[in-house]
């Protein structure tokens, strides 16, 4: 059929005007006009990217499985270093790591409390009563991105000499500093959740139905903000577990600093915990992503 058409129109003058390419029968592939890549291009790019990004992680896992030095170019493998973690004999070597881990968990809890008790009520108050201050609050919460952590810690050193006087030098006090670093990450999910709701209308509807402010908060506002609050808390946990800069400058022992110490004496176990931490953070963020998309699906039926 195309041969007939070509014979009738040898110079190819007659062409469909509407599409960029002539539609040939037998080609079911849809025409692409916009930015979307073809399936083949997409697959090639994503596969290359996946390989490039997985290689270091695979190398890290390979490293944790190494047993001894390579003999004549052949490396032995086994779960030796994984078993060693649970060996009561060597548990002393990992004392500092477990301690740092414990400290990080305590800091996690306190930082989440700071987000929920200081940031969240302030955001609600600004949204409901001082909407003109929203830009100011947003600006404050974004400052920690503009001022690098490594600059802030120079100022944290003198501030913490005062903090030690009030609260002592226990590792949990780091949560105050980490809470500041967390602000941009915690602010965004709560703010975008709030933007999707009209909190003023919701609260006035509840008030006009006779609800007290307590039940407005507990039964209307907070349940609606569940998604943003969960995301903010999970991101906070991920940031705290990954925090290294503040702890080194203030010489406190947390998960990351202990990891760096351990890496110098026992790189294999350091690598094992690094894999665990990466996977843990990935799962946390995957949950956030799923919470987000579930909510979005519900919103747009």
């Amino acid at each position, binding site marked *: 059929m195309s041969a007939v058409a070509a014979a009738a129109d040898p110079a190819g003058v007659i062409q469909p005007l509407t599409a960029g390419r002539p539609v040939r029968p037998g080609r079911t592939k849809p025409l692409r006009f916009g930015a979307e*890549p073809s399936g083949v291009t997409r697959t090639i790019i994503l596969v290359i990217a996946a390989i490039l990004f997985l290689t270091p992680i695979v190398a890290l896992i390979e490293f944790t499985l190494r047993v001894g030095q390579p003999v004549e170019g052949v490396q032995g493998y086994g779960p030796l270093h994984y078993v060693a973690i649970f060996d009561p004999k060597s548990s002393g070597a990992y004392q500092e790591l477990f301690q740092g881990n414990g400290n990080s968990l305590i800091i996690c809890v306190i930082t989440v409390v700071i987000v929920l008790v200081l940031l969240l009520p302030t955001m609600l108050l600004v949204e409901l009563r001082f909407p003109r201050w929203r830009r100011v609050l947003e600006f404050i919460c974004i400052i920690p991105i503009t001022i690098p*952590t490594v600059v802030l810690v120079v100022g944290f050193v003198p501030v913490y000499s005062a903090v030690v006087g009030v609260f002592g030098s226990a590792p949990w006090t780091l949560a105050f500093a980490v809470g500041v670093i967390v602000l941009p990450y915690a602010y965004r999910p709560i703010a975008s959740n709030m933007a999707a709701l009209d909190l003023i209308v919701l609260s006035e509807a509840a008030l006009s139905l006779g609800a007290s402010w307590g039940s407005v908060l507990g039964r209307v506002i907070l349940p609606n903000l569940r998604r943003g609050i969960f995301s903010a808390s999970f991101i906070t946990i*991920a940031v705290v577990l990954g925090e290294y800069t503040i702890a080194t400058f203030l010489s406190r022992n947390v998960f990351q600093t202990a990891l760096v110490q351990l890496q110098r004496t026992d790189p294999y176990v350091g690598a094992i915990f690094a894999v665990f931490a990466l996977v843990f953070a990935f799962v946390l963020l995957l949950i956030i992503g799923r919470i987000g998309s579930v909510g979005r699906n519900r919103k747009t039926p």
Partner: protein
Amino acid sequence: MTTAVASAPAATTRGAGTSTRSRRRSAVWVGLLPFLAYVVIFLAVPAVLAVASGFFDSTGVFTFANLKALTSPQILNQFLASFGVSLVTAVIGAVVGAIICFALMGTKPDGVLRTVVDSASSVLAQFGGVMLAFAFIALIGTQGLLTQTLVHAGWAQNPLNHFGNNGTLLYQVPGLVIPYLYFQVPLMVLTFMPAMEGLKATWGEANATLGGTRFTYWTRIAMPILAPAFFGSVILLFANSFSSYATAAALISQGGIIPLAIKQATSSETVIGIANVAGVLALGMVIVMVILMSAYGLLQRRAARWQR
């Protein structure tokens, strides 16, 4: 703020409500104070102290003399090294990240692929730090998988373990480029994807009805529209690399870039014979960051036009 209420009794209670509300509003202010106090003590005070400490000598007298630390060749070189690493990783990271965004165009935003890519990007872009450094030690460190593979393949002195006659590439400043790209590319994916999604299908159809090809679509429509967002992202990536500390600290034990120089300056007071060098370096970093973030803000505003 309130909706009009028609019935009379409601109107009277509303009148009473406004008077209590105005009284309550003055009390409600108090609710902002805890957060304000927190931000002042743990954000404003440290930021000011960090920058201001550069203006005092070792006896606590105000001086501008410390600023000459910024002109010492040792410090200047580290600033240049920081700029170099940031520029290279920002440009490569932005291009590679944009290509990945392109590949993700047209996939379902709620689909499994996108959620996995988003989560993996967040982990690497924001929380990787030390772990990323370990992964690269395992890959291209002295005993790394790739390094050892090259050695066994007969290339005993390859660029990975013998870079610039200074030993392992990964433990030198130029070597930082490789692990840095592993948080720069994901950050690009996170920041540039919304701009890519702002490209409307109708523009492609309009281009096609006017006889344009996919090439003209990209050169005449998509690229000009994406340009502000793209350059904005380049700046953000530059700032991100410029201010990151953990990965470099886990790889390089001495100085080399400015964040490492700050650490050195805080642990040993007089690196170059000047007091409070950490404060001066902090000031230098803040100036660079404020310039970068203002430029980013301007470009974001231009980019936002097309994202509605």
